[in-house]
């Protein structure tokens, strides 16, 4: 198991945003985290990423306890994450953005440069390398966000709604990119709202609702789960649908 | 006995510190922004009082005049400068009010020269003997009024509709917008309020203590210490901390020497940063980067 999260809970004061979440991710898997807004998936995600410290439970990565590890330590260990709203380094060029990521494992400038160019080729940003990052629109920024993390050679990539706000065509390209990354042997955990993406990409899905995990399994199975339908549509809809036949 | 005297004096001055520091912490809490020119706002309040005294109006006009003048200035500064730099890099945010501080300070030096002045004698002169402790009438009045106004500010923020609108913007700007509150207007108002609190504090101090354009710098630092001790964005915290700092300053001045009282206060500031940056009433999460 590459990633083992056991009974992870996170409370903000008296508000229990996440309660006893469990997830095991094996090397090479693509796992999706889904659920309505405020369901706790973002909280869980941020606990995995090292942005939030869980108030209960434990998280192990590659057999190392990372429950209380900092974001910096996460990156060093091989966990990379993107941000929902791309945190682009606006004042720097696209190449420089990626180089910051590359410098993690390649301390010399020439090596970092080579790695960065390689990643830019993989993500299709090579032609724009010397342009300012500011010049990119949202799809480009999301792509850059992913490129930057890739350059740091992660073993596990945590994608935070990396495909939100994209047009259908852009979504296709993004799915392609995620597949390419996966083909490199990188394990992926993705938080996503867009069902189409989850159904196509994820091999396994974990569903959150009101701070708890309510279902886990193959995407095609999970969408038929009555509890999941209940969570999304709410208020006994499923039961009513059943009755109507 | 003299120790007690020093303590009382310190508490009275501390009330004034509480007043103007409340203004600073309000802005900090609302906009995550430090106004480096806040000390100069206090200083300007003092000089407004001076100008008012020159046109032979009585001391009862000082406070309101300073409040109005500084409120206006606060709003103008927000609309013309702060609003725009808020979206920019940290450097320009810090530079903006820092530049303002320089401008105000040296303009005051240029116009009023660097001598310390006092306001002309009024009905407020003279000392009172309260059970062996001598307190100047002016200092007593300044301290009491400041305490009342600081409390009033707290009440305004927590118990009025206007106050809750201001706090809503501080809490969650987007949510406030959705509720029909204009964050921009509220922030401008907050700046006006903050500057006014500084101005009134200045006017009150001018009645009781000598002043010069150089005090702005000192008060800015005092305000920093008070808000840091009191806690990020907490007006009650600033109030309590104001009294504490006033007291500590007075006692340090008495026990160690007037020269070192500033040293003690700044040293306290560094100590607070080192040991408990969230201050007395902060929760800690806001201070971490």
């Amino acid at each position: 198991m590459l990633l083992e999260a056991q009974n992870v809970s996170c409370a903000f004061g008296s508000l229990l945003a996440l309660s006893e979440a469990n997830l095991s991710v094996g090397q090479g898997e693509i796992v999706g985290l889904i659920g309505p807004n405020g369901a706790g998936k973002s909280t869980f995600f941020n606990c995995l990423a090292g942005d939030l410290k869980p108030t209960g439970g434990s998280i192990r990565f590659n057999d190392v306890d990372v429950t209380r590890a900092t974001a910096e330590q996460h990156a060093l260990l091989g966990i990379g994450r993107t941000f929902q709203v791309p945190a682009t380094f606006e004042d720097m060029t696209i190449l420089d953005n990626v180089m910051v990521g590359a410098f993690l494992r390649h301390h010399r400038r020439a090596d970092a440069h080579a790695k960065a160019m390689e990643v830019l080729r993989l993500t299709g940003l090579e032609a724009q390398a010397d342009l300012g990052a500011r010049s990119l629109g949202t799809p480009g920024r999301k792509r850059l966000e992913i490129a930057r993390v890739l350059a740091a050679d992660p073993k596990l990539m945590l994608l935070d709604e990396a495909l939100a706000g994209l047009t259908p065509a852009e979504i296709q390209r993004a799915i392609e990119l995620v597949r390419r990354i996966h083909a490199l042997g990188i394990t992926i955990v993705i938080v996503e709202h867009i069902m189409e993406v989850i159904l196509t990409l994820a091999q396994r899905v974990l569903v959150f609702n009101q701070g708890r995990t309510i279902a886990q399994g193959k995407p095609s199975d999970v969408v038929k789960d009555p509890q999941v339908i209940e969570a999304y549509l709410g208020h006994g809809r499923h039961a009513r649908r059943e009755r109507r036949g | 006995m003299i120790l007690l005297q020093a303590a009382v004096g310190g508490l009275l001055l501390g009330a004034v510190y509480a007043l103007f520091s409340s203004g600073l912490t309000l802005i900090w809490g609302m906009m995550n922004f430090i106004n480096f020119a806040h000390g100069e706002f206090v200083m300007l309040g003092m000089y407004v009082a001076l100008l008012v005294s020159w046109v032979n109006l009585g001391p009862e006009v000082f406070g309101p005049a300073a409040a109005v003048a500084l409120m206006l200035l606060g709003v103008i500064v927000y609309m013309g400068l702060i609003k725009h730099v808020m979206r920019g890099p940290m450097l320009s945010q810090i530079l903006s009010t820092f530049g303002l501080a320089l401008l105000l300070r040296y303009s005051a030096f240029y116009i009023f020269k660097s001598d310390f002045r006092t306001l002309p004698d009024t009905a407020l002169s003279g000392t009172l003997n309260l059970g062996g402790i001598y307190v100047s009438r002016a200092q007593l009045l300044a301290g009491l009024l400041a305490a009342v106004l600081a409390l009033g500010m707290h009440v305004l923020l927590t118990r009025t509709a206007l106050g809750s609108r201001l706090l809503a913007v501080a809490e969650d700007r987007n949510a406030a917008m959705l509720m029909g509150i204009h964050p921009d207007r509220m922030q401008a108002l907050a700046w006006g309020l903050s500057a006014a609190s500084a101005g009134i504090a200045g006017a009150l101090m001018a009645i009781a203590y000598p002043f010069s354009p150089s005090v702005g710098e000192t008060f800015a630092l005092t305000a920093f210490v008070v808000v840091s001790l009191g806690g990020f964005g907490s007006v009650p915290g600033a109030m309590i901390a104001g009294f504490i700092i006033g007291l500590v300053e007075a006692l340090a001045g008495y026990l160690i020497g007037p020269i070192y009282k500033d040293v003690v206060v700044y040293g306290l500031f560094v100590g607070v940063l080192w040991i408990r940056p969230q201050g007395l009433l902060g929760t800690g999460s806001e201070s971490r980067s």
Partner: protein
Amino acid sequence: MRRRWGSIVLWGGLLVYPWVVSFTDSGDFLQDVGATLVLSAIGACAWNIVGGYAGQVSVGHAIFFGTGAYVPLLAYELFEAPPLIGVPFGIVVAVTMAALIGLPTFRLQGHYFSMATIAVAELIRLVVGNWDLLGAAIGIQGPATPRVWWDLIFRSAVPYYYIFLAVLALTVYITWAMAGSRFGYYLRAIRAGERAARSLGVPVRRTKLMAFMLSAALTSVAGSLYAIKVGFVNPESGLGILISVQMIITAALGGAGTLYGPIIGAIILVPLQSATNTWFGGSGSGLTYILYGGIIMLLARFEPGGFVELWNQVSPRLWRLLRVRAKTERARAA
């Protein structure tokens, strides 16, 4: 290509300046202004490392300047040593202080750091101003007449000018080497987005601290150079807040976070300050700071990137204009 020309012109100009100016009537005075200009540039470049590249706005750099100024002169006053010996010690003290200030404050939000730097600078100024060993309010003097050549006492400003220029060149080189290195990229990432930088493995706190310490060391050198040239320092001239302000505005006006910005800032501001001092006489310094305050505000409001940023926006249009002119000339000639 354009940038290469620009820096060649700049360094060339700086190199020949004292010679060129010696042909004018006020040659001596202008050479002195030149020395001040170069010194101001060194200080601004030093601040630029932590304030410009890393984006951590220190408003208390006078601490390090003052340290660099006081320690060498103390070496003379207490041990009759040539001030030059004190320079490395000044650096060590400055770097230590930077570490002490940075350690607690760099884990907090940026504003705390700025406030702390102001407070500590004031604190030190007050303490020094009342400590007899350090000259109290009167200050400390260096050797009045040269005993050995490495006392570095010259009548003319020209030797100082070239010593300063050499140090400036070294400072710029250090900045350039740093900016292109892993450390430099990490600094810029911290300025551009701390949270994202952290997620990429940038050791934020340690990096900020090192930048601050490097900046402190270079600032200390600037202070030492000042003390050696002027031969005197007191709490006002060595530790006053205006010294910190001067460094910030010089770097920011030219372009904080750029390689040559601080030098450009010095080229604009030092002659300006000299001129206002001459026009307005003794009270000129008050008006100078009113002007500074106004400039800083305008800078923050309209062009925080300083002169370099302004140039970057304007010059493409200028070049286009020139090229269009050249094309029409050629078309006409053909």
